[in-house]
């Protein structure tokens, strides 16, 4: 079966992590990012890694999936590694060639940054594996709701994200159709240099944009027809409620957070 692209990376299981409120997962992921940035000793990353491992087991998402989420990042990781390797010059010099100088401090710094990035990506991927984009949108709308008071368009932003999710597959299918239609008329989309290729995209993008505008117009009409008038007086079919497991999750994370920081400050090494 075709994979439903509106689900993004979502991996459906019946785990306790999946059943957490999206707001909990968003907040805790944010907290986790802060923690990763606060860690300044390499061995403390082991705690973060253990935390990720435990959450992965609880979520019933296969480890291979979590590791695979790193694949698109491999070039960035490599680049960061090499950059850091030669950027920081401290400690013993191990090797010197032309302007390059490899130091023990450089190796330390490179490993440190790589671990940090790896843990960042795995943590956020776990959130997207266990939460559907639409749930994330709902969660974000709720979390940002207090900012409405200072004029932040939380509801409008969430509605835009919802509509985008709804129309991505439609527009993808449409661009596919247009491409085929242009190819069948003898359009050459493959050969030539970058500029020529970019030019050959024009006959695909123009009809796609025209159609997108028409769709937007019709959708706006249909939404108005169904009484849409912003979020004033609007109720929700799906209400987010914090359950016991959400409070447990907060508590566990707080414990991890505090103990890692305590260890960092109390231990001399």
């Amino acid at each position: 079966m075709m994979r439903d692209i509106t689900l993004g990376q979502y991996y459906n299981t019946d785990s306790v992590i999946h059943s957490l409120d999206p707001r909990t997962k968003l907040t805790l992921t944010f907290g986790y990012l802060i923690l990763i940035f606060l860690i300044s000793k390499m061995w403390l990353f082991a705690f973060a890694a253990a935390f990720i491992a435990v959450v992965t087991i609880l979520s019933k998402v296969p480890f291979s999936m979590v590791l695979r989420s790193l694949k698109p990042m491999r070039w960035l990781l490599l680049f960061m590694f090499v950059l850091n390797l030669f950027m920081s010059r401290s400690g013993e010099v191990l090797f010197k060639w032309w302007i390059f100088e490899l130091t023990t401090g450089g190796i330390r710094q490179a490993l440190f940054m790589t671990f940090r990035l790896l843990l960042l990506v795995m943590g956020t991927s776990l959130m997207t594996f266990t939460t559907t984009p639409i749930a994330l949108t709902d969660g974000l709308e709720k979390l940002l709701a207090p900012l409405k008071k200072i004029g932040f368009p939380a509801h409008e932003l969430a509605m835009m994200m919802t509509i985008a999710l709804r129309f991505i597959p439609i527009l993808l299918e449409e661009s596919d159709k247009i491409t085929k239609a242009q190819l069948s008329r003898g359009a050459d989309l493959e050969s030539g240099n970058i500029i020529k290729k970019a030019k050959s995209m024009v006959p695909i993008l123009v009809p796609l944009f025209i159609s997108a505008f028409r769709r937007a117009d019709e959708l706006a009409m249909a939404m108005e027809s169904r009484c849409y008038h912003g979020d004033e007086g609007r109720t929700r079919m799906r209400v987010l409620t914090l359950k016991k497991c959400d409070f447990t999750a907060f508590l566990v994370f707080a414990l991890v957070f505090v103990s890692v920081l305590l260890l960092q400050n109390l231990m001399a090494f």
Partner: protein
Amino acid sequence: MAEIVIKNLTYVYSDESGVALEDISLTINSGEILAIVGHNGSGKSTLAKHMNALLLPSSGSVTVDGMDTLNDEYTLDIRQKVGIVFQNPDNQIVTTVVEEDVGFGPENMGVPTEEIIERVGEALKAVSMSDYARSAPHMLSGGQKQRVAIAGVLAMRPEVLILDEATAMLDPKGRQEVLNIVTKLNSELKMTVVMITQYMEEAVIADRVIVMHRGMIVKDGTPKEVFANGSEIEKYGLELPPMAQLRDELIENGVDIPKDALTIEELNEALCPLLQKS
């Protein structure tokens, strides 16, 4: 029950485009199925959009249950009472889960959560889509999507259901599904139905047919009256329904059948005795 009264309605999109609707007067009675037919650009959609205040008259008036569409205090009430299903199902489904989309209207109306869930269940059942409540709309067929769009309107518990060429993008099977639901809603829930259509055979099931031409209503009567005469309909760029065409050809060839037969059943009834005789 909702009654829509249109008086001397004229509508102009912009000065260059000319008049889209010209001096239309029409009363839509509650409980009837009204079909609106007409050539492309004859103003059918423009008229439909006036019925729930999506467009407001340039002159004249439209009232729904006595509420004038020009009074913006009534706008939301009118839109709750009069729901429109549009032609392209893709461009009227708002969210990525079927049941949430059906709940979109009630959410906007401020209906409490438990009641939204109840209404969504009912609406999906009415269009036989309960099994797809958790599906993603883009995984459904055209006919199924259009049924979801109808459910989205039904969840608002409207009194008038307008279908603006809602079957135009569907295959014959999808069209039949939608038509069956519409006739069921009319007969069981006494819902008023306004059906705009390109297919004359769909107009045949209506209680009353209106023909539009260049922004005006040029014919108004029962299907039998409107489709009695082919040459008159052709003046407005339309054709008779297939069965009426067959009827006229048979009569022309000397077969003795009633001049107002419109459906397969009626033709069948008239022809069978003739065949048995010969």
